[in-house]
């Protein structure tokens, strides 16, 4: 019964989220909000991908900005220069990102903890420099245009596409972390030496997690290109890796709702306070410090803890009453 209640809640949530564009699409400014939501959901997919490797497998990748860019460019180039239909292009772009992710993972996953973070950061810097300098690849100042088929011209259409992929990404991540494979991921996060001692090939497991994670971030990149309609080399900037990390930790790592809540919340906040100019970064910075101090497990983690605490209190009084 309880389980059905939960699913009913999720279904209701999806219905509400699906109805939003119907309301917003009536005005021009509503259309802009649709666009902001769409972008936020794309970033949320990227954050979910980081959640897999960092939140669940415990490896802090700082290269996800680069992989997002690689996915976006792969998609843009397939669509624009090769002339492939967008759907196979999206899959191809994700596969290519996953493959490159695996190549990067091979040397870098030999390292652990901060070493891994720095190796991936170095990798991101390199990718950024390469995209900056290879104008034949990145399109230089004009960037890379990405033309969408006419049925995706309307913002609400892209909103539904992205929403669909976001739900898919959440489901995929859920399937993985609740599975036996997921228990291997979590084991490595918890205690890598012990995992090895009980027969888990930690390198292969991490590599798999990283590759899947890169597939997802490549997908987010493709959707990014689809939504923006235009790309340039700055999309590979390592600042985006930092942002993904911020979204994830503020939202709540190793939870399924955390990445989505953190990303959508912060992305929206940053968009809304744009009007106050440069000082928005001051406010944003303060928010980061305060939230991380008072919600070390992020917003969702904190809420969960509170919920558990409240529940226990309830049960305890229940016991007394008996």
């Amino acid at each position: 019964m309880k389980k059905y209640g939960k699913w009913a809640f999720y279904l209701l949530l999806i219905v509400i989220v699906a109805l939003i564009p119907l309301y917003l699409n009536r005005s021009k400014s509503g259309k802009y909000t649709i666009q902001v939501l769409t972008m936020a959901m794309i970033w949320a997919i990227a954050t979910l991908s980081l959640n897999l490797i960092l939140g669940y497998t415990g490896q802090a990748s700082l290269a996800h900005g680069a992989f997002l860019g690689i996915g976006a460019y792969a998609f843009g180039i397939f669509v624009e220069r090769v002339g492939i239909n967008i759907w196979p292009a999206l899959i191809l772009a994700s596969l290519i990102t996953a493959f490159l992710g695996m190549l990067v993972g091979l040397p870098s996953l030999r390292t652990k903890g901060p070493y891994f973070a720095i190796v991936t950061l170095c990798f991101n810097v390199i990718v950024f420099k390469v995209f900056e300098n290879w104008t034949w690849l990145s399109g230089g100042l004009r960037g890379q245009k990405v033309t969408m088929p006419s049925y995706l011209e309307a913002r609400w259409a892209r909103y539904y596409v992205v929403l669909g992929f976001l739900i898919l990404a959440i489901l995929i991540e859920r399937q993985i972390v609740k599975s036996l494979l997921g228990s291997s991921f979590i084991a490595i996060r918890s205690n890598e030496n012990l995992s090895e001692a009980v027969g888990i090939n930690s390198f292969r497991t991490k590599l798999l997690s990283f590759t899947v994670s890169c597939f997802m971030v490549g997908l987010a990149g493709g959707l990014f290109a689809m939504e923006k309609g235009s790309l340039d080399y700055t999309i590979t900037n390592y600042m985006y890796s930092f942002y993904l990390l911020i979204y994830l930790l503020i939202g709540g790592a190793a939870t399924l709702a955390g990445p989505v809540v953190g990303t959508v919340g912060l992305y929206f906040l940053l968009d809304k306070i744009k009007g106050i100019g440069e000082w928005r970064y001051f406010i944003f910075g303060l928010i980061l410090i305060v939230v991380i101090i008072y919600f070390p497990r992020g917003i969702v983690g904190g809420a969960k803890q509170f919920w558990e605490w409240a529940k226990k209190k309830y049960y305890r009084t229940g016991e007394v009453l008996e």
Partner: protein
Amino acid sequence: GDGGGDGESVVVKIGLNAPLSGVAAGYGQDIQAGIEMAINEINDDGGIKIGDTTYTFELKSSDDGMVPEQALANANQFVLEEGINIIWDPTANTIGPQMGINTKAGEEFLIMAYTSVPLYAQGANPLMITMPPPFSIYLPEWIKLSMGSGWMKVGMLQTTGAYGELWGSTFEKAWTGAGGEVVAKAPADYYTTTDYTANLTTVLAANPDVLFIGGPSDPTALVIEQARGLGFKGGFIVIDQAKLDDIADITGMEALEGAIGVLPVENGADFWPAMTDFTKMYEDEYGERVTWETAICYTGFMILSKAMEAAQSVDDVEAIRAGFADGDVSVTSGDVYPVGFEGIDDETGALLMPGTSTMVVDGVFVPGEPIEWWKL
């Protein structure tokens, strides 16, 4: 203000998509100042009149931090939330992506592009106006000045990135075409590098006569200073992003001896009488020296308002774009506005404003003649 006419009065919003935070914030603010000055002047005069309606202007600025992704979002927000259809943008890397979205049906907007990169070279955009002259126009004169001084060997140390690379390759082609030699190349990222010595020693080891340098003004000044510090005695060819007067403030004129670049803005008064007053007006209001950005954007906005009048519309962007070519507009010249103007290249959308080179000789900026590049 209400224009004093009989009809109604409407406020027209103009968008500015510029770096207003971070390294290039000062640059964005110069642009902003030019537009603001023009708007204030027009509004104080009662706005522009089309039919019975009086129109005044209001500037909406949005910070894009030179991040294209952000610029695209800002543009969308301008168009959709504010109903804006004219957007000013002063950085080539953020204009490029916007050229991909500004013709979308129902969401058209006119890009007022402040960039010397001829972005239209790879395919014109029907809804874009480009203000400063394309950078390539200076090259023949600069090369002449340089080679006239007997400097045939150049070392290249301009900024990296797409803009710098474009400048570099254009320059290199022109230079070697004119019989010069590129003896060494060590471009540096002017936005992040704080010490250019390693680049400089590398280039100087090849004994160049002249250095091709430039990026934002401050780091460019540092390059010059460090080059002199390393004992370099030759000249500099400075790309148009760097302003020689700002550089002189930092390095002093002595270090600038032999520098070739774009004429400092105040010397523009030699050719365009209105510059003198404009310079003073700016200094009174903002308490610092005016820049080309401000002067050109001011002029550009004035021309825009004329184009609106010619088009008899403030929101039909295609008509406004066409209005730029209207005879009424092209009479304007350096007598009324601080920068000379002779109409528009209707095909590319480039405003026909001349550029002027200079060379520092014996501690003074010796100006060249304004280059009327559209006539070449």
